[in-house]
């Protein structure tokens, strides 16, 4: 394994990126060290663990972590590996417990504040007296907690690195996209819930294909998804002048790239197009009202109206921040050419039952492995990865020159650029700029300095 990666592999200024970074085991191993062990990663939604003792088995990079709620209601993220010999202390996807008892030799870890001082502390040790002579310092052998954790209006994020910039600094203006993800259709933050069940599936593609897709690849839509246009997947059905998304979406709405932070989205912060029209008029009326409420709230709270649509938070969490759909996806690395994709679906916590059920069924036929839209994405990501692994193929870099030199500073956000033409690879170029900065092995302070103290 190398500590850092050759900067020549990534040349965002000229729009040239080596195929190596999508197929090489060395690069992959370095990513685990320099990116996944340092970046803020999405863990889960608060509504998945509403009660004390609730837990959800999540994942950071290649590793299993437990999202828990302790007896005082506090949320924690703990590495799911016993400190004795590493056994997974929990192999359930979800449940409720205050102690994780290791099935190997029986060490137990507690999240009950009346028994231990820190959640995840080692509590029970078989033969503690006779075998360890009571000398084992239990306070030193608890489950490993993440270094930082944040609850952003119900969205839980964590990082292993104590030096990682604060979540606010790390996300910058991208927080408006996260706000929209965490807000109901009337714009009120913290008013969504995760539907029970996370879709998890394996693809034979490099994890960055997933991020890049949602980050700003409007270019792939007309070709990759031509078949869904034909069948009328949009909320307005077949008659609506629609592609696979929202029937009011204008042809060109620009895209946003956080040039130093690496995040990006396929729309801009200052522009939005309202909710779609539905085949069912009642739904159209309902969502028109919600849109008006949203406009009022956002204005009162001084939040920009846009920041909807597909987007990616560096490195591996992608989202649809609007309601059609409102979902998020995390690309968990497995190997250079294999990724485990997790997809959550979020809905307003106060929708009429029939509307929630309509949305759920619509989400499911849109996204995920059985989704009419997403099926074709995975075909492309997999075979693109496959055809890039060969000795000859690896000699030739990918082209990222679409929209080169065509972006200008955002008028709404001070840390982003916007491309006025919908189709651009500006977002990807800046994503890989950020990727290269972390992969260089530079410290956070050095990375910050290289930004020119911006």
């Amino acid at each position, binding site marked *: 394994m190398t500590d850092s990666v050759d900067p020549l592999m990534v040349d965002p200024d000229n729009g040239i990126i080596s195929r190596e970074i999508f197929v090489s085991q060395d690069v992959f191993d370095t990513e685990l060290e320099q990116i996944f062990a340092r970046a803020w990663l999405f863990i889960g939604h608060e509504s998945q663990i509403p009660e004390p003792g609730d837990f959800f*088995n999540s994942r950071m990079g290649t590793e299993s972590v437990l999202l828990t709620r302790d007896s005082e209601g506090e949320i924690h993220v703990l590495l799911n590996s016993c400190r004795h010999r590493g056994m997974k202390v929990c*192999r*359930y*996807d*979800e*449940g409720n417990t205050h102690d994780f008892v290791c099935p190997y030799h029986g060490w137990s870890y507690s999240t009950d504040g009346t028994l231990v001082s820190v959640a995840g502390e080692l509590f029970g040790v078989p033969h503690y007296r006779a075998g360890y002579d009571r000398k084992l310092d239990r306070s030193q052998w608890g489950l490993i907690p993440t270094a930082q954790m944040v609850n952003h209006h119900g969205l839980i994020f964590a990082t292993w690195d104590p030096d990682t910039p604060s979540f606010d600094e790390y996300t910058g203006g991208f927080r408006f996209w996260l706000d929209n993800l965490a807000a109901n259709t009337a714009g009120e933050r913290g008013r969504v819930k995760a*539907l*029970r*069940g*996370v*879709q*998890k*599936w*394996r*693809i*034979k*593609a490099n994890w960055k294909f997933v991020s890049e897709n949602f980050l700003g690849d409007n270019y792939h839509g007309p070709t*990759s998804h*031509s*078949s*869904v246009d*034909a*069948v*009328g*997947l949009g909320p307005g059905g077949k008659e609506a002048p629609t592609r696979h998304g929202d029937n009011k979406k204008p042809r060109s709405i620009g895209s946003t790239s956080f040039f130093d932070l690496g995040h990006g989205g396929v729309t801009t912060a200052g522009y939005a197009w309202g909710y779609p029209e539905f085949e069912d008029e009642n739904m159209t009326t309902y969502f028109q009202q919600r849109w008006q409420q949203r406009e009022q709230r956002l204005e009162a709270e001084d939040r920009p109206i846009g920041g909807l649509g597909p987007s990616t938070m560096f490195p591996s969490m992608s989202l649809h921040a609007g309601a059609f759909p409102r979902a998020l996806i995390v690309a968990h690395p497995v190997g250079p050419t294999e990724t*485990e994709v997790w997809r959550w*679906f979020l809905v307003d916590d106060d929708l009429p039952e029939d509307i929630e*059920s309509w949305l*759920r*069924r619509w989400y*499911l*036929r849109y996204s*995920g*492995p*059985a989704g*009419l839209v*997403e*099926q*074709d994405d*995975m*075909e*492309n990501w*997999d*075979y693109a990865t496959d055809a890039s692994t060969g000795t000859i193929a690896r000699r030739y870099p990918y082209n990222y020159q679409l929209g080169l030199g065509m972006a200008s500073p955002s008028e709404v956000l001070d840390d982003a650029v916007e491309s006025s033409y919908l189709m651009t690879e500006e977002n990807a170029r800046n994503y890989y700029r950020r990727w290269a900065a972390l992969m260089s092995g530079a410290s956070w302070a050095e990375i910050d300095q290289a930004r020119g103290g911006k």
Partner: protein
Amino acid sequence: MTTASTSSVDARLATLLLKDELTERLHLEADLLDEQRFDEWLELLDDDVTYTMPLRLNVHHSDADRASTKEGDVSWFEDDLSTLRMRVEQLATGEHWAEEPRSRVSHLVSNIRLLSVAPNPMAPEMVEVGCRFLVYRNRVADETDIWVGRRTDTWRADTQGHWRLLRRHLLLDQGVLMAKNLTVLF
């Protein structure tokens, strides 16, 4: 139903014939799907068809009720007739890249049992059939998927007495789906 109470030979014979008829239905369906005669397959569906495949979860065995997702939760499929039609239409566009070129698929069904017959085997109108499925997909060159699980179907006789699929509930025996997509109809 073949129970102790159905003692007459006639009733037992009727059950046997019914089972044969529905077994034939399942085998016909498998052939239509594997021969990509999707429009003909759609003809086998009731207008009110529901087609569901929940997610499977690892939970404590005492919590078995939560071992798969329920209605209202996330699933792999929660389709009605219009969505199933859309899937077939999408396949027919020739631009559905995930199935262009088409995959080679074989459906095997076994362990077929009649779980309930209403009102009775002599004059059946609604039959619940349980089976196992094994769906094999080979794609392009070396891409291979095998899906195995349990299926519970409800078949309803239409006005002409033909069996139409009213409900299909699929329990796939995979926690993490080990395939990139589910372009196959089960």
